[in-house]
């Protein structure tokens, strides 16, 4: 992605998004803008809908038959729920990192190379090697695994697996990376590495991270959205949000009154 844009451009926008599971409404009228320059964090207590909302942004919830999304979500101004939008391509452009590290039970190399292969991003073995190396380097994993690319991805430690998953997402050259509580299954040291990585990736990709760890949100993000009971209560600069929240519910949550 080009990084020379100095003015803040919205990569993704959502307007009045409602999500229903059958009759039950899980998300209520969320409007938010995601830009390239900032890392956006979604915080909120468990079950507030932040993960559900994140999954609408690359249509991962299409797989749930009872799930219905209304409102508008755009990527570069294009409605991602429009019939003309190819969902497979959308998911390549909007990558995702999941809560639990989920590498394929294949070699480290094949884990990274899978995406580029199915999208035909590499014209030969050499180029594929280069993509694998670049992706692993960006994910800060290259030094640790470069001598054992043929070993199974599942043999790595939890933190390494999660960085492998980030490298796998990077390998298809996405524009947006959605991270769904990427550190919740990791120890503090592995968490610190992932957070460092998020810092480095900032600006190259639009990053959205869901977390229920407020310190983490404060550390990694520049913009924060606070969700509660399916609605977005407050959205603003992270520093502002943590020092001077506008809404009482946000203040209560941040000060640990509930959640």
């Amino acid at each position: 992605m080009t990084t020379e844009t100095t003015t803040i451009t919205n990569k993704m926008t959502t307007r009045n998004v409602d999500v229903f599971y059958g009759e039950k409404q899980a998300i209520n009228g969320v409007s938010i803008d995601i830009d390239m320059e900032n890392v956006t964090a979604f915080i909120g207590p468990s079950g507030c809908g932040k993960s559900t909302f994140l999954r609408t942004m690359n249509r991962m919830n299409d797989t749930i038959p009872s799930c219905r999304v209304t409102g508008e979500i755009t990527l570069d101004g294009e409605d991602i729920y429009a019939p003309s939008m190819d969902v497979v391509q959308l998911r390549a452009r909007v990558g995702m990192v999941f809560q639990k590290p989920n590498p394929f039970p294949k070699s480290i190399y094949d884990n990274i190379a899978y995406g580029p292969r199915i999208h035909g991003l590499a014209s030969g073995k050499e180029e594929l090697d280069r993509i694998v190396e670049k992706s692993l380097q960006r994910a800060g994993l290259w030094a640790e695994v470069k001598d054992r690319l043929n070993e199974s991805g599942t043999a790595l430690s939890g933190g390494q697996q999660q960085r492998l998953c980030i490298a796998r997402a990077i390998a298809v050259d996405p524009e947006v990376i959605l991270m769904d509580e990427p550190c919740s299954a990791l120890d503090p040291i592995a968490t610190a590495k992932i957070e460092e990585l998020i810092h480095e990736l900032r600006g190259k990709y639009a990053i959205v991270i869901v977390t229920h760890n407020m310190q983490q949100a404060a550390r990694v993000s520049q913009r924060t959205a606070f969700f509660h009971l399916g609605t977005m209560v407050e959205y603003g600069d992270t520093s502002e949000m943590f020092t001077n929240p506008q809404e009482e519910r946000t203040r209560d949550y941040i000060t640990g009154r509930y959640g």
Partner: protein
Amino acid sequence: MNNTASPATQQTAIVGSRSTDWQGEVMQKRIVRRYAAERRFKYLGLSAIVISSLFLAFLLFVMIGNGIKGFSTTQVAVPIDFASATGGASPEQISGEGAERALNSLDIAGVVNTAIEIEYGAEAGDIFTENSWTDVRDALLSNPDMIAGNTTVWLTAKSEIDRAAKDETDEKFEALYAKLKDAGKAQSGFNWGFLTGADGTDPARVGIWGALKGSIITMLVTLAMAFPVGVLAAVYLEEYAPSNRVTDFIEVSINNLAAVPSIIFGLLGLVVFLSWLELPRSSALVGGLVLALMTMPVIVIAGRNSIKSVPPSIREAAMGVGASPVQVVFHHVLPLALPGIMTGTIIGMARALGETAPLLMIGMRAFLTSPPQGLTDPSTVLPVQIYLWSDEVNRGFVEKTSAAIIVLLIFLLTMNAFAIYLRNRFETRW
């Protein structure tokens, strides 16, 4: 003092755990009882294993004990002076293109029967069958030079003589065999004819190859039909089918189909494949199709279960990098589900291999003296052959039945071993 303290202690005894007497007599008794229960269960399990092992050992012991005799044969010597009996036929005459026709014109049957008559006189009918001369014809075809000389040929003896050699027949034949043996005119050897021949009327001359080949062809047809259709059905039902009443109905129907008695599949095959589609009767093709119908539900059920057990996180991971539904299935779900699918296939195929009833319905019980040459040739299969031989009056078929059972078991074990080898190769280590 005691009196005043007791209500308080009583209360803690109920609520707090501190006053629970872990070392007390009641607790110790509980421990003893628990250990006894553990031991009882262990011995129960052990005895179940021992009993089933005994059954298996008994089965194998009896089968091998009886069947091993079926693999040996008794031959009796007959000296034949081909040169004079055939009036000086040359080896060239009975080799090459028209060898068989030339042999027929030489009346080998007459030559052999005369030679037998000369050697054994009145006893000839008790030692040889009227088909014994075919051994000579086969020997001449493979070795034409014999026709120019005077040789002693070893002919397969009648089944009664064979049984006398394994000492289990009436006195007349035992005496006859003893006489032959003393004269050095009888020998025992491995019964190659059993491994290469097909069914017949004389138990000493029957072979298993016809039925074995029929079984192999039938199993190949079954596998070729049931595996792809079963796996695709399982994939569709698990990954694509919308969850509604129709899907539920199909699911219930498939589960029921797996429990339908096999003879009903035979009737279905009789009506659909033979009457409507007019496929060749008694053929391995129809047999394989009928068994495929029977095996398919088993594969579908096993396939669905193992597809279901592939962790959803793998699907999400694949979708997350932009894999299409087909790519998710074929690159990730199926490879991970394959070991489970193969287990189901092994079970289904093993059941199909041992199946007799549905094949009787479509006419695979014909008496066939030559192995099938293709899919549409009349053929039989091992379990049907076993069934037919076990029904024979001639005592000589008893050991052949057991021998055929051994062949069936070896086939089954080979098939399973191959499938397990494949499954272990595909098994992914997490």
